[in-house]
């Protein structure tokens, strides 16, 4: 049993046309026992940046608090919000600092980057190796293969915001149905220049 599979969970982010989306499941469990079906894994950094954290739940919370601290300091010093690309690099360094005693997290970052608000997604492993992709990124040890399969099939470039919602919704629900330790519904956040639209999905409650 891998430590990254102790709590389960799945996160996926996708790029659309002038929009980005991120989705996660809602289960919080401890091995086979489910504690809660209303625990999303996605946190808001600011209006143009969301971060999803899969992996060990306690480390997810700690890493998010550290990120929140860093981005608050950044905001005070720079008098602006941190760009998602910059946050990705900051997180990568934070995780590598713990190279020989890592945080057991699998982060996924998404946002609209820079003055052009270009869609940006990235993921990394538990020691901060970054993965910049143009199409989709995902995290979640137990559901990752299932997610790769559906995302590879259902994704196409230049999806509009509502199409992106449908694709992300289908991907996350279909994938977690084949993973015993993820699921209990899902949440999808779609970010456009206008703002963030969040929808909770009803899925199999098992």
């Amino acid at each position: 049993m891998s430590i990254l599979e102790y709590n389960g969970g799945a996160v996926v982010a996708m790029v659309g046309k002038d929009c980005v989306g991120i989705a996660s499941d809602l289960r919080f469990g401890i091995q086979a026992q489910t504690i809660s079906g209303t625990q999303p894994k996605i946190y808001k950094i600011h209006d143009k940046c969301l971060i999803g954290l899969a992996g060990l739940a306690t480390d997810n919370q700690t890493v998010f608090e550290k990120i929140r601290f860093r981005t608050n300091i950044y905001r005070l010093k720079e008098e602006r919000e941190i760009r998602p690309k910059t946050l990705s690099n900051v997180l990568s360094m934070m995780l590598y600092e713990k190279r020989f005693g890592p945080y057991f997290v699998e982060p996924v970052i998404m946002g609209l980057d820079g003055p052009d608000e270009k869609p940006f997604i990235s993921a990394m492993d538990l020691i901060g190796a970054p993965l910049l992709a143009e199409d989709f990124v995902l995290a979640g040890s137990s559901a990752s293969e299932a997610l790769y399969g559906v995302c590879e099939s259902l994704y196409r470039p230049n999806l509009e915001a509502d199409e992106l919602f449908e694709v992300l919704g289908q991907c996350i629900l279909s994938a977690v149905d084949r993973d015993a330790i993820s699921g209990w519904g899902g949440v999808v956040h779609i970010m456009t220049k206008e703002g963030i639209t969040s929808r909770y999905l009803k899925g199999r409650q098992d």
Partner: protein
Amino acid sequence: MAAPSFTVTPLQNVKEQKFSPYVNNGGTTLAVAGPDFCVVAADTRLSDGGYGISSRTVPKVTKLTDKCVIATSGMQGDMITLHKTLKARLVMYEHQNGKPMSTTAIAQLLSNTLYYKRFFPYYTFNVIGGIDDDGVGVAYSYDAVGSFERVKYSSSGTGQQLVQPILDNQLGRKHHHVPTTAAPVNMTVEDSEALVRDVFNSAGERDIYTGDFVDIYTITKDGVKTSKAELKFD
């Protein structure tokens, strides 16, 4: 006389080579049953168990009768023997009973053959596809020791975890908003074959053991048709 006493200390820093009778040569198979047809497909890549490709053109599918096809992933050695054994048993059945084995009977035969080696199993992950005596499409999926179930669609092999959720979504219509009054929609042969090609393309992207070519077998009341699709060679 005192019995000799020994102390045994384990050697340090010595790796022991253990012989393993099994190897996974990789690959993905799937079967999709329609109302009056069945599509069975498998890639043709043979890996050496690691990062090497031993061959790009090794078939994983065997036609057993005009109505039944078996596709197997896992260890190639066990696959070849298993298919040989089944074909021999089919010939014997036909001689003794004067007719070819029905797909449902073959399904049971495979289960029994696999369980016979319960304590030194065939390292094989099978799917059977075909049409039953009433002309209805059937698919069966198996584990390595013969536990089987009749299903509408199934996949096995290294790409199973990639492929199965796609089939759930597209064929099982899971999570689609379908009004309860709507009649169930069945796929046509062409749509099923197109879906199978898409699915293998997706699996080939993310699974290193799946690729090269796909053998697609379509079983209808008119017999078994085969076609080959290309996948990426990487």
